Structure formats: C-alpha cells, structure tokens
C-alpha cells in the first residue's frame, strides 16, 4: 500500500507543484542553439582515431555503424532522427562516402543488458563502428560505479578484439545532478574507460555544460528542460563532428588519447585520410 500511496502522492504533489515548476522548453530559436552547439562542441572531443572505421571507408567507401542505447531524439527535426542527420552530415561533407547507421537502441537499457546485446547485434549487423549511448539508465538505477566500469571495459575490449571501433556517448549534463555523487561517479567511470582503452567519447555532458555557461554569461539562465532540449538538438552535431574528427581530423593539442581537448576543426575543414598531415589510422 505504501508504494501505491507514494505513487499517488507523487502524482498529487506534481499537480500541486506543477504551476510553479519549470515549464517545457521555451524554445530558443534552433539557429541560436546550433550556434551554441558549434561553440560547445569545441570542448567535446579528444584526439582519438577510429582505425577500423577509417579502414572500412578507405577500402569500401562505406561505413556501417551500429547504434546501441537510448535512441537520441530531436524534437525539432521531426522528419529525420539524429542518426539520419548524422548520416546526412557525413555524406554531405565527405563526398562519395556511404554511411549507414543501424539503430538498435533500447531506451532504459542498462549497461549490463546493453553489453550482452551488443555482442549479438555485432554478430548480426557486422558494423565497423558502434555508437553506445550509456549511463542514464544506470544512473537512475543506482548501478555501482565499479560494476558499471567493469561492464564498459569488458565490452570495449571485446569490440576492439573484434575490430570494431566504439564511440561512447556519455551522460547528459543536468544542473540538478552536477553535485550528485553517484551520477558523477558514473561520469568519471566513462572517462576512465575512454582513457584506458583509447576510444572516442562524445562529451555530451561538457558540451551542454558549456551551453549552460554561455547562456548564463548572456544573462539568460536556461532551465533544466531548456538544456535537455538543447542537448537533444546538439547531439547529432556532436556525433557528426566526433566522427569526422575520429575519421579524418587531428587535434591541435597533444595529450593522452581520449582526453577532452579542443579540436582543430569541424567536418568541413577536416582532411581526408590519405592527405598528408591527416591522422593515419
């Protein structure tokens, strides 16, 4: 009975507090959000190459990507999802390249379940690259950070052993969770795995945090839901840029692989693999 009472209490409290609570995103113009995405993206990626994906592009002019984890959603772009947009951005910027993203996302799936499913999906799809959005369900289910890290590490190693590159899409920035110890431990676990295994991570958290900072500096503090909205809009851009950098680009800075550093440029000015000066896979 206590559960029922709690659930109904929760609903009742929501009704009472609803008027005072934050509204759904007020909706900054998409061009403004995209500009902020572009600026925020500068803090998002590290100097890691996607060797197997780059090889697939070089030899087959084709890249097969498997997307696992919660499917990103872009509410402002209703005709195409994030992954369709990522495909389009890459194909537009790199002529003659065929990118196919196969979405096998299960929203709410925890790392342990995703890890088990990735192996099956890799066997079925035979991808060159995996996008793995991970952490949110584990943060809400209070998965211990050690267990989470072990699961991620084992799966990344398995993927590397099978010649599949992986890009981790980490936790989203939530101002209300910026001091939540469990949330931050999982965030650190993702960063540790990225460093230890020299893989690429889309710094979704840092990027949205940067947007939050920009908005504050402009005197327009964004609500949590505004930031969620911005995060959804930006993720496709972040992914496209991360992929472009991992495949073709080079970071200005040095540093360890996977470290969060500013990047040299975006998809448009990245150099193709065989161009002198570009990162060799």
């Amino acid at each position: 009975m206590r559960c029922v009472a709690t659930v109904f209490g929760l609903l009742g409290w929501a009704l009472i507090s609803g008027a005072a609570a934050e509204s759904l995103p007020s909706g900054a113009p998409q061009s403004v959000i995209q500009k902020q995405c572009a600026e925020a993206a500068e803090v998002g990626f590290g100097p890691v190459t996607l060797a197997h994906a780059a090889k697939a592009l070089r030899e087959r002019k084709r890249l097969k990507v498997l997307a696992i984890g919660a499917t990103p959603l872009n509410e402002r772009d209703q005709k195409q999802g994030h992954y369709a947009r990522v495909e389009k951005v890459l194909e537009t910027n790199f002529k003659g390249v065929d990118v196919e993203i196969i979405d096998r996302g299960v929203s709410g799936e925890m790392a342990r379940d995703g890890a088990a499913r990735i192996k099956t999906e890799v066997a079925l799809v035979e991808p060159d690259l995996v996008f793995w959005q991970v952490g949110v369900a584990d943060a809400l289910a209070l998965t211990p950070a050690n267990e989470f890290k072990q699961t991620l590490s084992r799966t990344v190693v398995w993927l590397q052993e099978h010649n599949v590159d992986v890009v981790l899409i980490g936790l989203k920035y939530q101002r209300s969770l910026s001091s939540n110890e469990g949330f931050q431990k999982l965030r650190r676990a993702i960063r540790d795995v990225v460093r230890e295994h020299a893989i690429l991570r889309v710094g979704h958290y840092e990027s949205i945090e940067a947007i939050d900072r920009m908005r504050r500096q402009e005197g327009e503090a964004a609500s949590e839901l505004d930031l969620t909205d911005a995060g959804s809009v930006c993720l496709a851009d972040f992914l496209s840029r991360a992929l472009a950098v991992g495949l073709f680009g080079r970071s200005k800075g040095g540093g360890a692989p996977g470290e969060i550093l500013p990047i040299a440029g975006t998809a448009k000015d990245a150099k193709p693999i065989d161009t002198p000066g570009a990162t060799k896979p």
Partner: protein
Amino acid sequence: MQREINAVDFWRGYALVAIFINHIPQNFYEQFTHKHFSLSDSAELFVFLAGWSLRHVVGRPEDPKPTSALMHRLLGRAVTLYVAQLAIALIAVAMLASASLVLANPLFLEWHNAAAIFYDPVRAHIGVVLLSHQLGYFDILPLYVVLLMSAPLVAIIHRHAPNALLPISFAIYVISLVFGITMPTWPVSGQWFFNPLCWQLIFVLGFSMSRDRGPGGWVKRNIGWIRICAAPIVIGLGIMSIFNLWWDPTRVPDPKLLFIIGKTFVTPIRLIQFLALIAVLSAAYPYIVRVVPGLVSFLSRMGRNSLPVFCVGSLLSLGGQIIRFAYEGGLVVDTILIGTGIAVLGLVAWLAEWRVRRD
C-alpha cells in the same frame, strides 16, 4: 466460480512476482529470481502459460464451443488487454512526468523510451495507440495483445486441423529467424523488444502442450524420460549462464539467429532451455504444494487474476524504480519496496475475486 488451486495458476503467479522484482533493476532481491541461473526468464513462462490457458477457453474438440461465441470471447479479451496497455502506459507517462517535476530531474522524461512522448507528442501518441511506440518494461502486454488478436486463427486451425497448428507456428518462427523479420517501432526507429513472429511459437507451444492428444499427449506420456534428458540441459546452461561461458556470436555460421542467444527473437538455444526448464520444474509442483501450501494459494490467486495483477505490478515496479532513485536504494529500501509491492499484488488479486464474489 473460483478455480481450484493448480500448477498453471501457481506458476503464472510466480512469473508475475518475478517480473515485478526483475523490473526494479539493481534491487537486492533481483539476484534471486531464476533469470540469474537460466537463459530464459519469466517472460517465456508468462507467454507459455497464456497459451496453455487459451486451451481452456477454446475447449475440447469433442465438446466444441460455438465458433461465434469463441471469436467474441477471444477478441473481447484482446480488446480488454489493449485498453489495459493504453491505460498503464498513460499512467506510467504521468508517473515519469511527476518524478521529473518533484525530483527536479528531466532525465525521467527520457527514461524507458518516454522521450518521444514528451518531445515528439504528435507522432508518439499515434505510435502509442498503434502499439508501435512502447515504454521500456511496458512491452510485454503489446505482445500479448497481438497474440490474442491471432488467437481466433489459432482456435480455427486447432478446430479443423489440430496437427497442423504447431508446424505452421514453427515455420513462421524459422522463417523469421532465417530472414531476420521483425516488427518495426515508430516514431522512434527500432524493433519490438518481443518479436511477435517468434514469440508466437511459445504461445502455441503452451496451447499444444496443454492438449491430451498430439504433441501434448506425447509429452505427457513420456514426461519421465523427457525430464531425464532435460535436467542436464538446465544444469549445463545454468552453469554457462552463471559463469558467462558463451560462444562468440560472431563466429557462428549463417543464418546467425539460429545459433546465437537473443531475447527479442527468442532464439532456439533459449527456447530449448526454456522447454527443458519447464519439464524439470513441472516435477516440483506437487512437492511445493505439500511444503508451502500457503504460498501456493497466495501465488495461485495472483495467477487467476493475472491481468489486474500484471498491470498494477508494472506500475508498482516503475514506482519502485523512482522511489529507489529518490531514496538512494539500499537493502532497507529494497526490502520495503519488494515486500510492500508483493503484498499489494496479493491484495489486488484478492480484491478482484472479492468483487466477483460480491457480484
């Protein structure tokens, strides 16, 4: 009139409790449900027993119910399940929205595939009504709706060509595996977590095994040595599950779905393990009744009222996840959640029967 206590209701009650516990991930008691020692889990058991129960609705071939009455009853049941699915999905969405407001955490709006409902409501609401958009952990009832929608066809084939039913079902299953045919989701791209084209085989197996003739009759006559063969399968695959000793799925021959392990397509190895498991477990029921009759009575009541218990259980498990997050989990919180939740499920079953008795 209330049914007498029986194995089917007992195991269905057990499946409902196990689903409730498993749907609060990371809770302390999750590690004690049979999915941690087994390839298959309570979903297979639930669907198999739904098929078994369908046999009692359809009736015996020597005493057939009028076809129109049968169709009316089966389709009516499917509509009831459909409405129940819509209702619990709507309440779940309200719970997630409430949690996001009260706990000031917008992550809840994106949890369990709810993001489309909040950020793409125009298309997502159409998807919810079409069952092409399903919330995480609220995806077994849509499968059940589809299975019951196809139940009239099962009943007709059973009536006119009973021996053809299982081969037809098996053929659909194999074709789906060989060609990787599945049901797409919309507006969020993906596929149904429970592929109805594959899971229908478990439903039909439950229906067929309940018969005294055909495959069901053969199994009942040979259950002794079937159990002897099944026990090593259960033990062997149980050990492999515990120690994660699985073969590399990338190294199996094509068509890969015939050889890999997957829940969505309920692949053959999982299906074989499940059938072996129920062959072994069916031997345990008489002993369980003797040792813990109160527990059997309690779970059987839940099994007799599976729809309301399942619906309330789904919502309680979501509420449990939210409460766990709010109170930061731990053994005490988990014990309160699981204990209270099971008590509430028992109360729901009791109320459902009390209402019928009163009427």
